[in-house]
């Protein structure tokens, strides 16, 4: 029998606000345990949560960008559960009237095929604290610094059939949220967390099978591997005539397998009810209109524009827009008068090369557009040859060093003196009569050797093209 895998995703995204969702404590990562806390986020009796304006704004922006319907009359609910990661014994979330519903996210697959992923809902909620279980003691330490950090949870319909579709969606989602500036979406740091709901059914069947929910997926690679593992496990169960148990399973990266988790609750009965502490929200048309106007140009729109306005190939535009900060860097270079294609080449080759070698993201690099533009214009103006320029680039990259100063200090400026070049050619030919003879005898390889020697004589500072033609000219003259 052929089986079909059906997958739906629940993605938690941490919003990059300065303060928590319901109090003015900082959301800064780290900090000594319980130092980013107050009576509100530690759930003291008598405190009153007050919604952060930015959380609402970011959630609505995300809802709009995912083509969702914004819930004009929206409120918060209490999700009750007893686990010490939330000291109130409930999480303030949204069940009945989430901020957005019925979104659509178009994705494109490797094959070029397109597909629309339907968003069931997007809601706002608070994050939980961190529990540290001491292996030696019969106690658990609670650090509530993360408690109350704002999240949006984005729930899709069970629209995915393959891991590739899941990854394509997550990449698209991450790009949209980063361009919106509502989250940095770093999986390693937990600001984008994804739970995968998966079931299998006989191909062609319309009914959904029993699903399991997988947690602890901390990279796209882990998600793809966990999907492959879990689909196989469920198919094997079905083929043995057993049934899948609806449960939460934890992905173990080291063991490459999923394991049933002991349930947080005896039953998934959260006894939701409207939170009386947080008054409802009325979203006005003016507010929505204002946020619609503020929506930035997204990666896809930028790609199309770069192709149209600068004649760049699709591959280049995809690389340039892969990170918001990179696209901004590119656009600033152009506004400083730099040539689009040359700038694109430098960014794709050198900038991305350095970023990946140093393991940092574009938004964290110190190099400024004006430094790159200076370098490009020095190459263009014949003051630096391309090879030297790459070395200068690598030297100034880390601290956005002074290009002019570096070139002067190291005497790297290109020598465009024809007399010096002629002298160098003469000298090299006189010292390498054998190579000259070899070339005349038909050994083309000798040409490269002679060019290299002249370049060396010029201490690498000559224009490679000029050296090439000078050597060629001299050989022709001798023939």
């Amino acid at each position, binding site marked *: 029998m052929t089986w079909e895998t059906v997958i739906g995703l629940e993605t938690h995204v941490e919003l990059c606000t300065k*303060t928590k969702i319901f109090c003015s404590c900082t959301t800064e990562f780290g900090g000594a345990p319980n130092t980013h806390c107050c*009576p509100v986020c530690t759930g003291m009796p008598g405190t009153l949560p007050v919604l*952060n304006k930015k959380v609402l704004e970011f959630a609505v922006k995300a809802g709009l960008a995912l083509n969702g319907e914004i819930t004009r009359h929206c409120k918060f609910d209490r999700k009750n559960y007893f686990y*010490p990661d939330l000291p109130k014994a409930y999480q303030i979330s949204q069940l009945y009237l989430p901020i957005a519903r019925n979104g659509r996210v178009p994705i494109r697959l490797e094959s070029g095929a397109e597909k629309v992923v339907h968003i069931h809902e997007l809601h706002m909620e608070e994050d939980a604290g961190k*529990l540290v279980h001491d292996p030696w003691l019969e106690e658990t*330490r609670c650090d509530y610094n993360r408690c109350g950090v704002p999240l949006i949870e984005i729930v899709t319909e069970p629209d995915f059939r393959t891991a590739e579709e899941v990854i394509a969606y997550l990449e698209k989602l991450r790009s949209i949220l980063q361009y919106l500036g509502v989250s940095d979406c770093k999986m390693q740091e937990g600001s984008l967390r994804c739970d995968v709901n998966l079931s299998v059914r006989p191909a062609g069947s319309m009914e959904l099978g029993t699903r399991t929910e997988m947690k602890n997926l901390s990279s796209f690679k882990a998600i793809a591997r966990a999907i492959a593992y879990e689909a196989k496990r469920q198919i094997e169960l079905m083929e043995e005539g057993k049934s899948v148990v609806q449960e939460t399973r934890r992905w173990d990266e080291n063991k490459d397998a999923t394991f049933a988790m*002991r349930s947080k609750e*005896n039953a998934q009965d959260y006894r939701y009810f409207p939170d009386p502490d*947080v008054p409802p*929200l009325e979203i006005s048309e003016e507010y929505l209109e204002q946020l619609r106007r503020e929506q930035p140009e997204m990666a896809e729109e930028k790609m199309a524009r770069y192709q149209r306005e600068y004649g760049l190939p699709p591959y280049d535009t995809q690389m340039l827009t892969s990170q918001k900060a990179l696209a901004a860097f590119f656009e600033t270079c152009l506004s400083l008068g730099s040539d689009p294609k040359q700038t694109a080449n430098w960014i794709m080759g050198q900038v991305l090369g350095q970023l990946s070698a140093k393991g940092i993201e574009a938004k964290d690099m110190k190099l400024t557009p004006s430094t790159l533009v200076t370098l490009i214009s020095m190459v263009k103006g014949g003051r630096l040859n391309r090879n030297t320029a790459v070395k200068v680039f690598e030297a100034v990259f880390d601290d956005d060093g002074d290009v002019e100063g570096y070139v002067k200090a190291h005497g790297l400026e290109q020598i465009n003196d024809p007399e010096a070049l002629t002298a160098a050619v003469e000298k090299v030919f006189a010292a390498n009569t054998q190579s000259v003879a070899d070339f005349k005898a038909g050994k083309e390889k000798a040409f490269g050797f002679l060019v290299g020697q002249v370049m060396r004589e010029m201490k690498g500072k000559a224009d490679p093209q000029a050296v090439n033609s000078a050597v060629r000219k001299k050989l022709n003259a001798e023939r």
Partner: protein
Amino acid sequence: MKITEELVDYVAILSRLKPDEEERARITAELEKIVSYMDVLNALDTEGIEPLSHVFPVKNVLREDAVEPSFLREELLKNAPVGDEEAFLVPKAVE
């Protein structure tokens, strides 16, 4: 809705409560009364009436996203029945 002792047991588990026999009987009777009052309310025709989640006509209560100093940890931890100088301590709770 009939409140059975099984239902009370289930709600007790969800609420992390351990009523003894006597309490269970009392709670069952009390819950029965409360829930039967809901039946009185349910008898009303509420067709076309929006559910009321807040008594006061207050909406859009929002604050600026501006950081204010957090509470002094030492003071905060005074509320912990068990704690050390850094954290709240609870009986071991492993997922």
